[in-house]
């Protein structure tokens, strides 16, 4: 238990003794035979769930089980866009909860997650988009979320490298969230992991869950590549593998797993200090601290678990962005990668009880769940601790698919990053 805090003094102290005193950020224990709660999946959402279970609800006999390495799923593969300018009220509530937790997450975790609220623009490049985003601005104002509609001239001021004249896709304005931005994805996972470990929770990596044990309709434990482990409650937080885990427990989810890709250019001097999303052409871009332009596009259209996407998406997205940012036309692209995203029909997440008692799911964040990690963990911890959803999770239950109460963000967001 306990962890040494990171601080200026710690840096100075270690500098004087050849950095011999840094300890591992989290422990790697062997699994115990039973836990109050097992969280499957050490991505951001799983780790944040465990963290707030301990911090807010005092439940600390918790294990987080991960088949690979922590943060190695979508959490370590995403383009790190953070925003809360969604259309529907339940979305706005949970995404803004997350965004506001990001504001002082580094202090809370004592771990620098490099939250950078540098401003985020969603370009309107068609009349339809213009109307849609103006509607979102009105909705956001009613929800208490600070966004504004800005003119093409203001867009040009904020992003001088942007060609607002078109010719194919002229910029008609933008939905602007001044406190949107980015954070360091790995650090978010690592910071939460360190916080969990410090509370005495077990993070068990290289341990795949292979089965779910139930008795009389209730969960009693799991089978893993490190043997059977008992639990009173089970939280499945495995993004692209949610259908696989659900099948182990005998139910299905309204989820399809698909590849989503991102890529980065060679590093260049600072050229763009905001995040720009051009949803009409399915492309978005920001610049990393290393100087690389970080670019992402849309998902493939077919079921896929390989973490590899189709080449033509890279080509189409880059081609479209070159029209909007002519100066990138000669840049070499350095690296490309993919993640498996968990898509729901209404493009909204699922935080829910399941047909099996004491099993809870958190999934369906699809292409846009990095931004929501703190809020999702917060709401999921409440759901797991109390057995019933609190206000943030209430609308995101599985029951909405039976009742036709969708939280439609697919029309509202175009692409949802």
């Amino acid at each position: 238990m306990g962890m040494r805090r990171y601080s200026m003094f710690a840096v100075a102290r270690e500098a004087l003794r050849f950095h011999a005193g840094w300890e591992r950020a989290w422990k790697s224990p062997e699994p115990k035979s039973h836990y109050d709660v097992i969280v499957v999946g050490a991505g951001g959402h799983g780790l944040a769930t465990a963290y707030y279970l301990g911090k807010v609800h005092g439940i600390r006999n918790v294990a987080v089980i991960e088949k690979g390495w922590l943060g190695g799923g979508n959490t370590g593969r995403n383009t790190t866009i953070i925003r809360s300018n969604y259309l529907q009220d339940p979305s706005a509530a949970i995404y803004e909860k997350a965004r506001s937790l990001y504001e002082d997450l580094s202090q809370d975790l004592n771990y620098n997650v490099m939250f950078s609220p540098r401003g985020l623009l969603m370009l309107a490049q068609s009349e339809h988009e213009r109307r849609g985003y103006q509607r979102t601005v009105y909705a956001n104002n009613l929800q208490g979320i600070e966004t504004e509609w800005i003119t093409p001239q203001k867009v040009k001021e904020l992003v001088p490298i942007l060609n607002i004249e078109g010719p194919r896709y002229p910029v008609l304005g933008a939905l602007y969230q001044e406190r949107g931005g980015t954070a360091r994805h790995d650090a978010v996972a690592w910071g939460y992991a360190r916080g969990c470990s410090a509370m005495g929770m077990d993070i068990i990596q290289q341990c795949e869950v292979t089965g779910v044990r139930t008795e009389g309709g209730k969960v009693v434990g799991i089978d893993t590549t490190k043997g059977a482990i008992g639990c009173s409650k089970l939280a499945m937080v495995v993004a692209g593998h949610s259908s696989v885990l659900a099948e182990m427990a005998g139910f299905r989810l309204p989820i399809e797993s698909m590849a989503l890709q991102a890529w980065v250019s060679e590093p260049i001097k600072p050229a763009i200090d905001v995040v720009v999303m051009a949803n009409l052409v399915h492309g978005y871009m920001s610049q990393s601290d290393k100087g690389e332009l970080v670019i992402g596009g849309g998902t493939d259209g077919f079921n896929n678990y390989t973490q590899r996407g189709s080449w033509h998406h890279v080509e189409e997205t880059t081609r479209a962005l070159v029209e909007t940012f002519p100066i990138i036309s000669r840049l070499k692209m350095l690296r490309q990668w993919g993640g498996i995203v968990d898509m729901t029909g209404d493009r909204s997440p699922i935080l829910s009880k399941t047909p099996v008692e004491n099993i809870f799911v958190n999934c369906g964040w699809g292409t846009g769940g990095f931004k929501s990690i703190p809020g999702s963990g917060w709401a999921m911890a409440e759901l797991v601790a109390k057995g019933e959803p609190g206000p943030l999770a209430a609308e995101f239950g599985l029951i909405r698919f039976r009742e036709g109460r969708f939280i439609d963000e697919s029309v509202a967001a175009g692409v949802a990053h």
Partner: protein
Amino acid sequence: MLILHCPYCGVDAEESELAPGGEAHLKRFGPGSSDEDFEAYMFARKNPKGVHFERWRHAYGCGKWFLAARCTATLEVFGTYKAQNPRPHPDIVAAVKAKRPGWEGWK
């Protein structure tokens, strides 16, 4: 790039000529069915990590819908067959079994 053989026009079509259509062989439930059945028909997908039967349209070719058996864990294609088959064609089932001896079969 994914390449699927169109069983209608005989072209080996590249992915950019094709439009994906999701899980194949869904049993339809409409008005009068139970809420559970309707919900399952609409939303509850198998989404397996492994053998998957799915619909594709040769959108920029002959325009026809056809079916394919593919592995979502490796992207291997087992074969394609015509959309008139209410369940996977026996030849396709045999082709899958030959490559995935442990496969449980289509349910």
